[in-house]
């Protein structure tokens, strides 16, 4: 079976600053991969490279067996199949919750309005947001907004979901709601790649954890290994700082 995403020797720099350096990564269908590491280690940039929000400086990215790092590839074709949720929600403030969720299905995927709305309502219902569909995003709490952003990404039925520190901007008491939603998705077999600082969550849900340091994947493996018995000294240092006790 071809892996869903295959990254080889990925390199990305902003001017002289190298953000990603010789990154190799393989994501199979139904994988849930957590990227951990301090801020500035390149987690977000890696996610942004995967749906072609960033132009890469070297290496190859394959999606479903096809090279998407080729300049001739139309980025929109890739983005149609990949969903992304941002740290700061990035909902459209001028559209209602339902309109946020149906925009792409209707305009990009050509789904008829009634069908798009029905699918969006089902998902909103499932994530406990049914009563807010007519409201505008700024009326909602941070946790609710982030769950709307998650639903918006899911409405296009993506084959891969990229989650960029989606709980980092939330109050601690709201983090749980959002993570519970992601947990449900993982249980349903959604393929996900997420940058996160939630180690407990990574331990429970991830099929694999990657530790990034200065733009490199320093080590990767099953969570019980990377989080409990890391091989690298840098990983141990990082975990000592973020794990309580």
């Amino acid at each position, binding site marked *: 079976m071809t892996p869903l995403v295959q990254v080889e*020797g990925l*390199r990305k720099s902003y001017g002289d600053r190298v953000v990603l350096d010789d990154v190799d990564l393989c994501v199979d269908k139904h994988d849930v991969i957590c990227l951990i590491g301090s801020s500035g280690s390149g987690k977000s940039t890696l996610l*942004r490279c995967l749906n072609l*929000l960033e132009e890469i*400086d*070297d*290496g*190859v990215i394959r999606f479903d067996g096809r090279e998407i*790092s*080729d*300049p*001739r590839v139309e980025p929109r074709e890739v983005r149609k199949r990949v969903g992304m949720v941002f740290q700061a929600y990035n909902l459209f403030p001028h559209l209602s919750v339902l309109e946020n969720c149906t925009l792409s299905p209707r305009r990009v995927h050509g789904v008829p309005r009634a069908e798009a709305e029905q699918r969006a309502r089902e998902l909103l219902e499932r994530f406990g947001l049914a009563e807010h569909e007519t409201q505008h995003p700024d009326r909602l709490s941070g946790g609710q907004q982030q769950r709307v952003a998650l639903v918006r990404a899911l409405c296009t039925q993506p084959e891969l979901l990229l989650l960029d520190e989606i709980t980092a901007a939330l109050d601690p008491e709201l983090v749980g709601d959002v993570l519970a939603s992601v947990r449900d998705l993982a249980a349903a077999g959604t393929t996900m790649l997420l940058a996160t600082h939630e180690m407990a969550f990574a331990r429970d849900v991830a099929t694999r954890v990657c530790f990034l340091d200065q733009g490199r994947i320093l080590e990767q493996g099953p969570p019980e290994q990377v989080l409990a018995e890391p091989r690298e000294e840098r990983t141990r240092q990082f975990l000592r700082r973020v794990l309580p006790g």
Partner: protein
Amino acid sequence: MPSEREQERRRLRRTLRLRSVLIASTLMVAVVGALVVGLVSSPGWERFRQTFFSWPDARASFPAIADGFWLNVQLFMICEVLILVVGLAVALARQARSPWLAPLRLLAVVYVDLFRGVPTVLLVLMLGFGMPALGLQGVPISGFFWAGVALVLSYGAYVAEVFRSGIESIHPSQLSSADALGLSRAQAMRFVVVPQAVRRVAPPLLNDFVSLQKDTALVSVVAVFDAVFAARDYTAFNFNFTPYVVVALFFIALTIPLARATDWLGRQALERERAGAR
């Protein structure tokens, strides 16, 4: 050293870029070419060319137009400063919350409503001919003076609204933190809100000034010998419209640098405010 594949990719990106440049330039040439051909092949082209693009007439009218244009530039420079002062003062008056200043607030509202609603050319006509006609002692009778006043009043109202929208766009949390630091409302405006607002509205303000540069041509309606008046004068005697084209070129030469400056400032502001946001 980039890999073989990356070098190949860069070559490909260059080719793709080159192709877009090629498409753009070909289209540009085609469109401009079609327009020129359409113009030149029109039945009246020869006559049109003689009345609008006559080189001898352009040369003959040039000195008078250049003299007149200096008047436009002076008017612009003087008005610009006064408009900024009037505009900011009116915007602040509209923002005043103290009960003592209520009459001032009302006055500001009436002023903006009135002067933004009246066409500038009417203001110039009414003030330029009306005020000297009063025959009051000490009231200037110069058309230049009253046309300037009309421009300041008209543009002051526009600029006041630009400033006001800038002031209102500053997030209330800025006022809260100024309050929390013990600043008075006037101090908060002076040191916190207005500096941020001015930076934010600089691009639309410059846009208004580009417009003002052109509207200095309105003084010609009250017989001030500016560039447009000079051109009209020449046209009336020689039955040739080339001087109008000359005046247009003068104004374009003046507005283009300001327009570029506006673009540049706008970009700067955007980059500053969105630094790091992706």
